[in-house]
């Protein structure tokens, strides 16, 4: 700890009041621009409050207290959707809008997240692998992280152009004779959300790789070296050392990605030209919220949807916080379990010592060269 001015000691000036003063801008802006609007949003959810848009003018209705009416509307309002799986017709089903949009959002997230975590884990392990010793690492990292900084709206627009009915992909496929008639991949009930998920994957796998790499490199290298000496195969090292020690960062990546997935908006909105694609199959929760606020101008229902999203994201953030800041006794338990695992590992017989020795001399030889 840093030496700090003691309070109530004679002859010393108390500087600590300055601390409060310097916190004022941050805290005031938070209270005024985040916390108050949040309460305002939640407050609206109990009221009938919308713009009654006529042909020429619009007039606000409410706010009038209505209890749970907005929530009931969200949970009851349903539309008949025609489901397709590529060419296969699955028939018409009436489904609740909110549920449908939630399923869309989560489906897009999962379709993007599974390849993202698999590829990122693979790359993180490869980049930090002693034996493999991959070259040009800075180049690879620079390239795979680049899409993360690109404007999502512009990225969505770029791919909308590329996948458009008269765009280069369809043109090429027609030329090759893979398809007979042009199709609109931005307005298909099966393809659109796969493409959006792919764009999400492309934007985020570099970020996840770098995070996981930082996690892997944070692991004490002596653990790897001793494992290598004991002749552990890279699969064993991965399962017994890397994965358990990576767990906190893994949870962090998983949940922050999920929070981001729930908020998916820019790409889907621009790529599908705000429609959500055919049968609104790529219509996300955020797009629903956006249309409630700015198109339908139904502030009561928008408030109710915001509250539901707030509860989900708050619960998820709480989980992240608990993983990153474990309680003292939990931290001790974790440390004990790691130590236990290390001991078990040390006890296990070096079954493939030959291979380990090979690995060691291979890597040192490389170092000499």
């Amino acid at each position, binding site marked *: 700890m840093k030496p700090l001015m003691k309070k109530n000691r004679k002859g010393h000036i108390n500087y600590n009041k300055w601390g409060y003063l310097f916190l004022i801008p941050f805290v005031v802006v938070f209270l005024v621009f985040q916390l108050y609007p949040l309460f305002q949003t939640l407050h609206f959810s109990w009221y009938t409050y919308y713009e009654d848009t006529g042909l020429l003018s619009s007039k606000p209705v409410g706010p009038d207290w209505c209890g749970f009416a907005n929530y009931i509307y969200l949970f009851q309002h349903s539309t008949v959707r025609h489901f397709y799986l590529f060419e296969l017709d699955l028939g018409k089903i009436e489904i609740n809008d909110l549920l449908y949009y939630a399923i869309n959002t989560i489906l897009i997230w999962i379709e993007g997240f599974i390849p993202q975590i698999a590829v990122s884990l693979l790359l993180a392990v490869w980049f930090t692998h002693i034996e493999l010793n991959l070259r040009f690492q800075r180049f*690879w990292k620079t390239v795979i*992280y680049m899409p993360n900084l690109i404007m999502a709206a512009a990225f969505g627009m770029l791919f909308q152009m590329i996948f458009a009915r008269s765009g280069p992909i369809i043109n090429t496929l027609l030329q090759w004779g893979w398809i007979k008639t042009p199709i609109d991949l931005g307005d298909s009930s099966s393809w659109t959300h796969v493409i959006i998920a792919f764009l999400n994957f492309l934007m985020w796998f570099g970020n996840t790789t770098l995070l996981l790499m930082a996690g892997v490199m944070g692991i004490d290298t002596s653990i790897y070296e001793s494992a290598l000496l004991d002749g552990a195969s890279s699969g064993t090292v991965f399962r017994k050392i890397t994965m358990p020690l990576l767990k906190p960062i893994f949870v962090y990546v998983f949940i922050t990605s999920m929070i981001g997935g729930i908020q998916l908006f*820019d790409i889907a909105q621009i790529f599908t030209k705000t429609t959500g694609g055919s049968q609104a199959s790529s219509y996300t929760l955020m797009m629903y919220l956006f249309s409630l606020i700015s198109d339908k101008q139904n502030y009561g229902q928008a408030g109710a949807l915001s509250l539901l999203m707030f509860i989900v994201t708050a619960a998820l953030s709480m989980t992240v916080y608990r993983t990153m800041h474990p309680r003292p006794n939990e931290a001790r338990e974790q440390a004990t379990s790691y130590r236990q695992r290390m001991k078990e590992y040390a006890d296990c017989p070096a079954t493939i010592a030959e291979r380990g020795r090979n690995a060691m001399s291979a890597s040192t030889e490389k170092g000499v060269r």
Partner: protein
Amino acid sequence: MATTALPRRVSKSYRIQLGFRRAGCYLFLAVLAFLCIFPLWTLLINMTRSKGDIEATGFRWWFSTFLSQNWTKCFNDNHLPVGSALRNSFIVSLCSSVLACYFSALTAYAFQVYNFKGKQIIFTFIMLIMMIPTQVSALGFVQMMRTWKWTNTFWPLIIPSICSPVIFFYINQYMESILPFELVEAARVDGCSEIGIYHKIVLPLMKPAIAVQFIFSFVGTWNNYLVPALLIDKDSMKTLPLIIAAVKASDPSSFDPGKVYCLVGISIIPLVIVYLVFSRFIIKGMTAGAVKG
């Protein structure tokens, strides 16, 4: 070296196997790199192609000659005020990242140098709110801005960045690891005011951390679509993402892909260049901020 004295057990087959694995890794990396670079390359190429060429043939590998025509069309479209959008985006991003960095560092300074009641509680609270997206309070925010008559101004896009928990968190950690408290005390003895210490000693020391966070903040604001979309509908105040979103509204017969590629290029390329120049620091900063010990 000592290791060479060890019995050489590296079997040939093992080395061949390792070589194959390495080749596989490079192949996989090359595919991923292709996926990342190819869309941008297509963008660059198509910025230079004419409407007819783009619609007739799919991909081309090399530049054409229509860049200047597409460029002029892009800037002269009355429905798409690209010039003013570029200026607006730049102003908003610059102002909000300056504010975000200055006040986040000030908040971190308050936490690192002073010891006051409730410090731990406030810190925990900031950590908790860090994850909650601002989108869930968007409705209340928009309503408040409407009552304040702040819609179609830049204030609601700039002022809230003073409270940026993520930037604060990163600078706070950096400060914790490098700021020597003796320096602050020495300055006090020499009669420097508290805010003077912040300006003259702490801010210069924080330069590396602030530079990285400035870039992240700039990129974040530059790319922000949702909040401006909710608050701004006057053409002259629109930022670049809004202009891109407005493209769909234009008439299909007058739709010119070359022009739109140019517009997308204008919004992406400046940041890509900045990224490529500073990539080493950005990548380092990105991982250092997110992973704690």
